[in-house]
């Protein structure tokens, strides 16, 4: 095996699974290291910065709730982009990307829902309300679970890929609904306070740990996504090799 044969010279080279696996092998240790460093800094800031004068200590829930909520939407957006890659370009890794992102998205959405509930009880006086923001995020969680179940139910990954891609793109309509639900509907959930016209409405004391934790969660997602993509390629190779072994055994019996 030579290094030059696995070198990534252009973006399209990533379509080659062997080259992707070689690239992933080089990048994953660095990505994991950066993720650990960002979490160390982010967690230290999360517990050393001041509490809010109104919310007190509960403001610290924001440092995990908000990044998890961002990731829940970003993950689905990546799945939608991958679905386009599957349907339009038949990119060999697009389906792999969408398939392995679903469990990660479900995990981040679960964290966003649970931490939101734990923040809601002391601040709103209730664990849950069926308002537009909370309900649309809960629907996103159910969509992730549905896609995981569908992919596991289908034996042929290439046949599952096209149906799954269509389902992902139909479900993408929920992402702008989640984002703008706080503007379009009367909800208990506060409107956007970081990504908004006129700049963040959050004080820098809270913004610093929030952005570092967001970067840490994002790096964690990309590290796990790359690892899971590599594993999915290996899983398909195993399936292909088992088919070859079964065919050879059948041919041997006939001969």
């Amino acid at each position, binding site marked *: *095996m*030579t290094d030059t*044969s*696995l070198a990534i010279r252009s973006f399209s080279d990533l*379509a*080659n*699974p*062997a*080259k992707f696996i*070689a690239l992933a092998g080089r990048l994953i240790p660095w990505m994991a290291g950066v993720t650990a460093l960002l979490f160390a800094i982010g967690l230290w800031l999360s517990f050393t910065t001041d509490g809010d004068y109104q919310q*007190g*200590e*509960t403001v*610290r*829930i924001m440092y*995990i*709730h908000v990044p*998890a909520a961002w990731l829940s939407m970003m993950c689905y957006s990546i799945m939608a982009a991958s679905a386009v890659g599957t349907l339009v370009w038949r990119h*060999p*890794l697009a389906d*792999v990307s969408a398939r392995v992102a679903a*469990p*990660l998205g479900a*995990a981040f959405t*679960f*964290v966003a829902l*649970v*931490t939101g509930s*734990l*923040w809601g*009880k*002391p601040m709103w006086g209730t664990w849950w309300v069926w308002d537009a923001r909370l309900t649309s995020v809960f629907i996103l969680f159910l969509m992730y679970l549905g896609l995981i179940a569908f992919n596991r139910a289908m034996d042929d*990954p*290439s046949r599952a890929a096209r149906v799954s891609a269509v389902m992902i793109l139909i479900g993408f309509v929920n992402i702008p609904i989640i984002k703008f639900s706080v503007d379009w509907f009367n909800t208990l959930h506060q409107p956007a306070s970081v990504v908004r016209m006129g700049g963040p409405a959050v004080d820098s004391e809270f913004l610093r740990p929030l952005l570092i934790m967001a970067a840490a969660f994002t790096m*964690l997602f990309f590290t*796990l996504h790359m*690892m*899971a993509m*590599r*594993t999915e*390629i*290996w*899983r*398909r*190779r*195993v*399936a*292909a*090799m*088992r088919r*070859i*072994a079964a065919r*050879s055994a059948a041919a041997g019996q006939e001969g």
Partner: protein
Amino acid sequence: MQLAHNEGYVLASYAITLVAMIVIIGWVLLDSRGRQRELKRLEETGIRRRSARTAAPGEPATEKTIDA
């Protein structure tokens, strides 16, 4: 005390997030190791993919599809 009461919500949030992250990281790691072991076992029995068999000796398989 109200402050101590609210700290419980903060700790519960971080604890649940930690458990969820450990579960998802653990699942990705175990799945990765399991597939690597399976591939190694199959290669040891002499089974090769089509693309691996057609590659020149010493060269990596540069397949365009994933399951071929």
